[in-house]
Each structure stands twice: as C-alpha cells, then as structure tokens.
C-alpha cells in the first residue's frame, strides 16, 4: 500500500455508509419458490411428506395410466387436480412463512454487510506512520485512527483520545455516546461512526469475527443450529407423522382390498396431509428465525439462538442494584433538625452547604428544599471557598466570604469535625440507618443542626417488572456494595427476592456457581472487566454495550442500549419462543379431530351409521375432503403473524399459562377447524353450483382426459 495523506481518505475510498434495513418482498416471494428445491424440502420431514405426495398427485392427475391399480379406482380429474393444487399451495405457504422470516433477518444483515464491505481504515504502524488499508486487512492488536465522519473498521478499544460516537447502525435510534480511553467506556463496535473527536483504537477482533460479523451470521442463519427444544419437537412431530403414515397407508391397503369401491387415492393422500402436523411443521423454522429477529429488534445481539431459548428457562436473575434496581444515586428525602433547631434553619444550612455541590445528592437536597419553599442564598462564587468531598474527609461544604462555614457529610466525620454530636440526633441517626437510609449531618460553623436523609431511589416501574418475574417463577438476587441494612431496605422496597450485601463483583461468580450446582439456570448482566468471568459462566450473560470489550466478549448477549433491565425483556422473548412452538403444536393436534370428522364420513360413505360421525353435515364427500385440505393449507398463512410475532405472553404462573394457552390454541384449534371447514365447504358448494365455474371445470376436465 502506497503511502498516502494520512488525514484525508484516498479518492473514492469508502469510509462511511448509512443505510436502513429494507424488507425485500420480491426477494421473499422469489425465495418461496426456490425453496421448492428437494434439497431444501428434505430438511423438514413433515413438509417433505407433503412434497412427495404433491408430485405423486401431479402424476396421478395427468398420467393416471401410470397407476392403474390406484388411480384407476375413483379417478376424477377435477378432484385430483384440486388436491394437487392445494398440496402445492400448502407447501408454498410454508415456504412463504420461512422466506418472510428470513427476509426480515436478511434485510438487517444486508444493511450491516453494507457497512463492512470495502471499508477503508487508517492504520497506525508501530513507527507511528499512518497508511490506508482495507479493513479486512486489519488484525487483532493493530492500531487505527478514526476521525469525524469515519467508521470504526472493527471492534476495538480506545487507547488514546475520546470521541462522540454514533452507533445507530447497530442500535437504531439511540443517542450518540461518548467513548474515551481509560475507564470502562473504551470499547467501540466496528461500524460505529465517529461524530466528534479523534480516537486511536486498538483492534480487538480478527476480521470476520467482530460483533458486526457475528450479528450478520446470526441473522443470516448460517450459525442457526436448531435449538435443543426445536430438535426434540422435531423428533416428536416426525414420529407423529410416521405413525399417521402407517395408520393411513395400512388403511388404504385394507380399503383397497376389502372395499375397492370406496378406495380413492386422492382422498387417502388428502387424509394423510390433513392429519400430519403441517401447521406447526410449516411454521417451525419461521418461529425460530423470528425469535432471534425479535431479540435483535430489542437491540440485543444474541450470539446464538440457543441463548435466546435458554433465556426462557431461567430460574435465577442476578441484578446489580445500582443502575438496574435503583436509579443509581441517593436522593434527599427528608430533613431532621436536632432539638432546638428550626426546620427552615436546617434546610437553609443544608442547601447552602450544597450550593456548589454538583453531585446528584447535592442537587437533590436543593430540589427537596425548593419543594418546601426554601431557596439558597445568593453566593458569590468567586469569593467562596469550596471544600470538596474526598473519600478521606467524608464531607464537603463551603466557606462564604462572610466566613460562614457550611459543612455536610458522614455523621462520624461531622462528629469529629464538630467535636461532638447531639444525643437526640444520635438516636435519629440510628433510626435512619436501620431503615436502610443514609443520614448526612449538616452543620454551620461547627454546630450540628440536623440530618439530611438520603435514600436510594428505586427505579420507577421496576417493582412491577420484578413482580412479573416472580410470577414467571424467576428468583431475583440483588448484588450491592451497600451494607446489609441499606440493602435490605432496597430489597423490601423493590420486591427483589434476596440480596447479597457488601458484594464485590468477583462474588457474582461464586453466586452463579452455587446456583448452578443446584441445577438452576442463571442470568446476569454486567459491564466491567471484572464481570467477565461471571458473564461467561452464567447461562445467559448480558453485557452492556457501554462496557468493556472483555465483558462483551465473555457474554452471550450484548445489549446495545446498555439497559440492564433488558434481561427481563429477553426472558419474555425466550418464553414466547417456546410457547409459540407448544401452542401451534397443540393447535395442529386438536385441528385433526375436526378433520377426522370431515374426512372419515367421506371415505366410508355408505357405511351403516357413518352419518352419525358427520357432525358438520358435509353431504358431498369430495367437497368435504377439499374443505378439510383447504383449511389445513390456509391455517399456515393465517398463523404466520403469530409465528413471527410470537404468542402474546403475559406473565402468569405456569398452570395459568397452560390453562390459557390450552383454551386459546387447544379448544380454539378444535372450534376453528370445525367452523373453518364448514365455511370452506359452503364456499365450495356455492362455487361448484356456479354455471360459469362449472363450464370452466368441464373444459379442464376434458383437457386432462384428452391428454
């Protein structure tokens, strides 16, 4: 690579792109047909049976002479043609479902790929010189410089400088974020665009293995192995299909030899296709793909579909107190003056001591006093001496030009500073502490006036979410560095099930190991490097995008919005994924009951007493079979929205969920099939009495017979 101007990109080189995901309807439509390839179809054993029967019926319709024994009896060109067409439509619907789910994923992957392909990067060589290289030539450990308007070529850590970065390519609409060297905000995702500032980045991923690539691979499905439950369900459905095949094929033989006049190849094939679980079989892969899609829509990158499924199984959630359960800062909630001190006097002193305190605690004191109508005195900033907070001093304050010394701080520090502490206040300190709150003593000129009570504020809405988790049977464990009293108070207020006080980040690891040893599935979220081992050990580890590369590398999911409560959403998506599979399987099975009542009377027409099974009063046997087959086919597209969106999930106990989903999808499947088949039957009866249709149908019949 020739040496070039290191500052401006070479002419024509791509350093940045912007593109939104666009769902390609035409692509999905095309894919729904190319999926008719037998090599694709054979992957789904249930639909493959339909596929084989489709070709069989195609031959039987147009070349009945090939099967004189089978098609000779009861051959009716229009009836056979109709069955052939419906079989094709059934297959096509299943393909559409899969193609749509894939197109959704592909749209996302394409927009990401656009980012990656042909991106140029400004590499910094060890001798300090800079040169332009394609990003695909970079390796882990290389250094690059990224300037405003350019994209970060690969995942890496900021080692020098700081910048405002737009990660919307990955995170959608989220606001620009700051990334700088040192601390916990060093990591950059490949594909992020620098808006402001110049950073030197050390690449931490090999080309093709960054987040971007992983995300592309996942949504494209190249790494989409069937998840464990999907495998088990496929085994069950395949066994059911095989059993039904045996039942119906032996029935066909028995009919053929004992009641040759009743035998009809088309009806037998229709019966098999109706009974095998085509509804769930046709939608199964779409459900899996959409599950992963939903996770990415929630701005979470899952490294495998398995991790998403595991999220549905979680029993224990380890949550950090700060940032997840509480807003992260203590806020003033109360003023407690000592005996002989007026409340206003205390408030005045408190806000004066905090006048130049920019911490959230300080501001909250001013806000609380303001609510009670007390405003700070005007302070001449120039002449005021600020005594800043330091961990050793454990207090802060200011000295006004007039010499008034306002101080607030930890009670022990103030006691030493003031050289004493009022007895009544000492009692109040104990009360406040035992309530899990933090007392701050306030004094003016070394005279203790009273306390400001600070409290950790629980995030709005967290209580409801924790209750939902509890309902789903998930136990929450809060980790906090606070002492036991404070932790207990927060735990009680938020409704968290248990808590670990005075916890160090390393302790999460041992908690996870303990829980796992008892057979629990554990999830946690984290962002620091010291969270990495625990994130790796957890069954579901959700790293914050704002966190370090080590944390993101170790976790099996990364939240691009850096919202620790996202775990709760991920759990819901995982559960939805499993419920959707179970619900549609139930739907498939209960549907079959109604289909039997449509087809069995049609097959055994003329048998004594068979009319008692004809609950839907379908008098024309052929139309009855076609109606059942049509309902079977149209169940697939009608359920595509449910497969893609997932079954509505409301947190509830397992038994309630079972009852609810059995009612909707079990009883619903039964009733809808009876109603649906009857509706199709009425429509077909109407169609087949229409003279125009009959004329066309006669022409087709003649044409086929003429072949």
């Amino acid at each position, binding site marked *: 690579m020739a040496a070039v101007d290191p500052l401006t990109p070479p002419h024509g080189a791509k350093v940045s792109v912007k593109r939104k995901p666009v769902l390609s309807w035409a692509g999905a439509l095309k894919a729904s047909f190319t999926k008719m390839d037998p090599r694709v179809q054979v992957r789904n054993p249930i639909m493959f049976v339909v596929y084989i029967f489709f070709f069989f019926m195609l031959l039987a319709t147009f070349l009945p002479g090939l099967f004189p024994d089978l098609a000779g009896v009861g051959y009716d060109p229009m009836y056979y043609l109709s069955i052939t067409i419906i079989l094709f439509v059934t297959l096509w619907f299943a393909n559409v479902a899969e193609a749509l789910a894939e197109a959704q994923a592909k749209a996302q992957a394409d927009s990401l790929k656009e980012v990656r392909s042909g991106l140029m990067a400004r590499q910094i060589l060890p001798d300090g010189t800079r040169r332009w290289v394609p990003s695909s030539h970079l390796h882990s450990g290389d250094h690059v410089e990224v300037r405003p308007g350019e994209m970060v070529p690969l995942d890496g850590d900021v080692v020098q400088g700081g910048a405002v970065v737009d990660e919307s390519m990955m995170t959608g609409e989220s606001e620009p974020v700051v990334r700088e060297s040192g601390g916990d905000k060093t990591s950059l995702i490949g594909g992020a665009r620098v808006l402001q500032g110049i950073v030197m980045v050390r690449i931490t991923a090999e080309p093709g293995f960054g987040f971007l690539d992983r995300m592309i691979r996942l949504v494209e499905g190249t790494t989409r192995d069937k998840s464990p439950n999907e495998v088990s369900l496929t085994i069950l459905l395949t066994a059911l299909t095989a*059993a039904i095949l045996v039942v119906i094929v032996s029935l066909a033989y028995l009919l053929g030899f004992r009641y040759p006049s009743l035998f009809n190849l088309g009806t037998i094939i229709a019966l098999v296709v109706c009974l095998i679980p085509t509804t769930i079989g046709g939608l199964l892969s779409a459900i899996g793909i959409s599950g992963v899609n939903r996770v990415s829509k929630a701005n979470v990158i899952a490294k495998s579909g398995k991790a998403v*499924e595991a999220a549905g199984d979680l029993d224990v959630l380890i949550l950090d107190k700060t940032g997840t359960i509480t807003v992260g800062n203590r806020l003033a909630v109360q003023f407690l003056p000592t005996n002989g001190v007026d409340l206003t006097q205390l408030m005045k002193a408190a806000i004066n001591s905090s006048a130049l305190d920019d911490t959230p605690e300080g501001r909250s004191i001013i806000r609380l006093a303001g609510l009670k109508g007390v405003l700070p005195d005007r302070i001449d900033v120039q002449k005021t001496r600020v005594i800043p907070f330091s961990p050793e001093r454990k207090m802060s304050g200011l000295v006004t030009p007039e010499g008034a010394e306002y101080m607030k701080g930890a009670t022990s520090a103030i006691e030493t500073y003031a050289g004493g502490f009022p007895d009544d206040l000492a009692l109040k300190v104990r009360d406040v502490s035992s309530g899990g709150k933090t007392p701050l003593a306030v004094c003016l000129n070394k005279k203790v006036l009273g306390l400001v009570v600070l409290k950790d504020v629980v995030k709005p809405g967290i209580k409801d979410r924790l209750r939902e988790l509890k309902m789903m049977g998930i*136990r929450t464990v809060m980790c906090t560095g606070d002492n036991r009293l404070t932790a207990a108070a927060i735990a009680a207020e938020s409704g968290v099930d248990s808590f670990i006080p005075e916890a160090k980040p390393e302790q999460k690891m041992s908690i996870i190991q303990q829980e796992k040893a008892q057979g629990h599935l554990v999830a946690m979220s984290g962002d620091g490097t010291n969270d990495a081992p625990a994130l790796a050990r957890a069954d579901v580890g959700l790293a914050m995008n704002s966190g370090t590369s080590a944390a993101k590398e170790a976790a099996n999911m990364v939240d691009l919005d850096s919202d620790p409560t996202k775990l709760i959403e991920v759990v819901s998506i995982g559960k939805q994924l499993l419920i959707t599979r179970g619900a549609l399987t139930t739907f498939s099975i209960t549907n079959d009951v109604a289909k039997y009542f449509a087809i069995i009377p049609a097959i055994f027409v003329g048998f*004594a*007493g068979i009319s008692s099974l004809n609950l839907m009063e379908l008098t024309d046997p052929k139309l009855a079979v076609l109606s059942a087959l049509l309902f079977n086919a149209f169940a697939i597209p009608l359920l595509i929205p449910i497969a893609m969106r997932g079954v509505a999930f409301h947190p509830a106990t397992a038994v309630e969920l079972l009852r609810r989903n059995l009612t909707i999808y079990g009883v619903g499947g039964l009733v809808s099939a009876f109603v649906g088949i009857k509706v199709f039957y009425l429509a077909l009866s109407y169609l087949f009495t229409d003279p125009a249709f009959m004329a066309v149908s006669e022409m087709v019949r003649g044409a086929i017979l003429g072949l």
Partner: protein
Amino acid sequence: MIELSTLPDVILTILLVIFLARALGLYLSKVFMGRPSLLDPIMVPFESALMRLMGVDPDHQMKWKEYAVALLSLNAAGLIFAFLLLTFQGGLPLNSLGAPGMSWDLALHTAASFTTNTDFQHYVPEQQVSLLSSMLGLLVLMFLSAATGISVMVAFTRGFSRRDGSIGNFYFDVTQAFTRVLLPLSVLGALLFILAGVPQTLTQSVTIYPWTGGAQTIPLGPVAAWDGIEFLGTNGGGFYAANAANPLQNPSAVTNLISVVLMLLIPFASPFMFSRMVRREQEARPLLATILSIFLLGLFLMIFFQSSNPFLASTGVSQSGGYLVGAEQRFTLPESALFQVTSIYSNTGATSMALGSLTPGAQIDLFWGMFLQCVPGGDGTGFGMLLINVILAIFVGGLMVGRTPEYLGNKIGKHQMKWAAVTILSHPFAILIPTAITFVFGLASFSGGTAAHQFTVVLYEFTSESANNGSGMSSLNDNTLFFNLAGTIVMLVGRYLPIIAMLAIGGSLASTDPAPPGPGTLKTNSATFTIYLILFITIVTGLLFLPVLVMGPFAQGALGGP
C-alpha cells in the same frame, strides 16, 4: 332397565382396590429401595443363596444397556425353555391326559405369549398342555413375565431420582419382585380362591357319571394356584379354555371380585410406589386420577353399551337384564362388565364373556383399553407406558408455559423424545401392518361373521397381541402357521420395544443434570394438568386408531346401549 342391583358391590370393589393398592405401593417402594420390610426374616436367606447361586452381586448398579441385556437374556432363556418343554411334552412325565407335543409354531407362539405377559392361547389348555408344561413352563413364565414388568417399572422410576446414570440391578429387582411381591401375594390369592371353592389338586381329571347317563371327564389341576398368578401377574392365560367363564375357575361372584382385585392390585399400586420412590408423594394423585377416570369411563361405557342390543330391541325381545348373549348367566351385567373391563384395561386378557358376541360399542370400549395400554395396563409396563405418555404430554404442555419441559426435576430433551417416539410408533406398526397383510394376502379363515366382524376379529387379534393382552375373539381360526408366527413377532415387538424405551428413558434421565422444580415449573400435581393429560392421551391415541375402529366394530352397525 339395566340390572344394577350389584353396582354398589362394584364400586366398593374399586374402593377396596385403591385402599389395598396404597398400602402395597408403600410396601413396594420399601422393597425396591432396599429398606427393611415385612418379609425380610423369611426371604433374606433364600434370596442371598439365590444371588450366590447365580453369581450376581445385587449391589452392582447397572446402566440401562446392561440392565436391558440382562432382562432380555433372562426372558429369552425362559422362552426357549418353555418352547422345548411344549414341543417335547408328549414324551415327558406328568402327562396323564396324553397331550401330544405341540407343533413348533404353536409352541413358539405359546412360549412367546407367556414370556411377554400376553398369554394368548391358540390352543385348548385342558387338552393340549401337560401338567409338567403347565407347572414348570407356563406357570414359571407367568411369574417371570410379571416380575420383568415390575422390574422395568422400578428401573424406570429410579431414572427420575438418580443422577449417576444407573437404574438398579435387574437380577435384584426381578428376584425381589418374585420373592417379595408375586409369590406371597399369589399364594394369598390362591388361598382365597380355595376358600371360595376353586379346585387345587394334582389330579388331572375326575370322571363323573351324571344322572342323565354316560360318563363325563372333568379336567382338574392346581387351578387355584394358577388363578392366583394369572390375575395378580396380569397374565390372563386360563387354566381352562373358557377362562373365567368356566365355573371351576370362577365359581361365584366372590371369586369374580377376588380376581378383579388381584388384577388391579399391582397396576394401581404403581403410582403410589412411584411417588414414594421419587420422594414426591402428591405426584401419585394426577397419575391415579388419570388411570381411574379413563378406567371408570370404560366401565360405564361397557355397562351402557351392553345394556341392550339395538338389533334385538327392534324385534321387541325383552332385555331386562341387559344384552346377555355371550355373557355369563351366573353374573349380573355390572359384575361381568367389571371383570371384563378390568381384565382388558389391565391387559390381563382373561375373559368371562364371549368378546365376539358383545355389542359393537362394547367392543370399541375394549379396543380402546388396549390402544391406550396404560389405564392401568399390565403389571409394571402399563405404568411405564403411562409415564411415557406423561413425558409426551408434558413436553407439549411444558413448551406452552414457556420453559424447556421438565418433570419431577428432570428436563425432557431429545434423548427422552427419541425413545418416547419409538413407543408411539411401535403400537400402530405392530397392529396395523399385520392386519393389513392378513387381508391383502387373504390369510385368515373364519367360522362365520360379517365382513366388518371378520375385520374386527383380526384387528382384535393383533391389538391384543401387541398390547400383550391375550384375549381373543373365537371366530378366528388362529392356530395357523401365519397367525402363530405373525403373532409371535407382534407380541415380542409390542413387549420389548416399549420396555427398551422405558429403560433407555430411565437411563437418560439418570444421566441428566437435575432441574429442581421452582415456582415457574409447570405443576403436574394440579387439576389443570390432570385434565390436560387425560385429553392429550385420548386425542393422540384417538387420532392413530379412529380409522380402523370405523372399519371394524363401528361398521358392524349401531353401537348398542339403551
């Protein structure tokens, strides 16, 4: 009106069964967990001598494959021994009736039949089996097959609570099942039968000279002893061809009820034993409720359908005691129905009615019991089938609550599904394929009956053999090379495929990590789950077998009933 005066007796009998089964279940759990139990002082010396003799270390814990190989070997040995005995019985002692050696295919069918707990009899026992073959061959097999079934259930159960991949020692289990359960209880049963008037002798016949003139030879033998294990072991092979309809085998309403209690005792004790062994005692409830509700429905339908025959009703013939053709006149309809439903639903297969003469509705009812195989099913294996059904139901149901399905602290994954799938397939395969072959190649001959009835009879033959039931409809000439060989294969498949699956599932559960039930786990001990389980079993079984029922009993005409 139906004759229902004995209905209270029927209900009391079932309550008695549940009461006794509960006690027996606790006892079984002690025996198979190796805890001290009642018969220790008598049996321990005998058992340890037996173990030493066989060279078996009863503490050695087997993985499922080793267990299965041991089980199959012992069963094969039993089958071969009985086969040789029956083939050569003509030249062996204790044959005062002069029964000739059986043809090889009949001997094979008979040996397989008693080894697999089917006890289908393609022969007339009182004429074609010598006392030696009975005592040393068939009687031993009746104990062995029942003990095998119990062992399978125990090993399967252990899989739920163990974590080291082992499921017990087959030799220990089968010995305990014999010495601690079958032997003492069948002796007790035999004593009750003797008290109630069933003959027990080594004399093979007596000749009487009735006042009508001439001489009549009445075959006798150790009938009471035979009855004890026939019913307790859910075997069902009769000492007499007429089985429980023969007044020597089943003389009174009392012996009828003793038989019922014996047949249901171990199958109903199984849920109690299971819940004890997995240390979750409430879990017996949903299982027992499932068994009991389907069983009672079967009993109700039997009484309902047999209460009147629609063909007779149209002729104006009075059927005040119910439709009695094929029923034993000595018993009332509820008594006969209780015995027959018990015998078929427990896959004992003993008969006290002529099954081919029942109304079509009653026949469908009996088919239903054999298609289900698990309400309560035969000793051990019936309960094993129920557990497999629970696993299947819980898989679909578990998904619907949004978790990887789990049962009693075990995640249900692909290994369990694979073997459960094998059992879903084995029953329809083993029943329908030979039925189709029979008609496609015209291999059956009948003594009368309509086309639909003939179909019913063949379907019944293979259903009974696949379910290891053993009852049959007499209008089929089934002692032919085809039916003997096909029947042998069907019985072996119907018996050992599910047994292997049960052991494999037990073994795979024992090798999976525990998944302790939490608040989010689907509670199986709940009314919702129980109802779901009943519906699941009913719908899935119905889907597979409805078409053939329509071709068979349904096509015979109106079902029957008042």
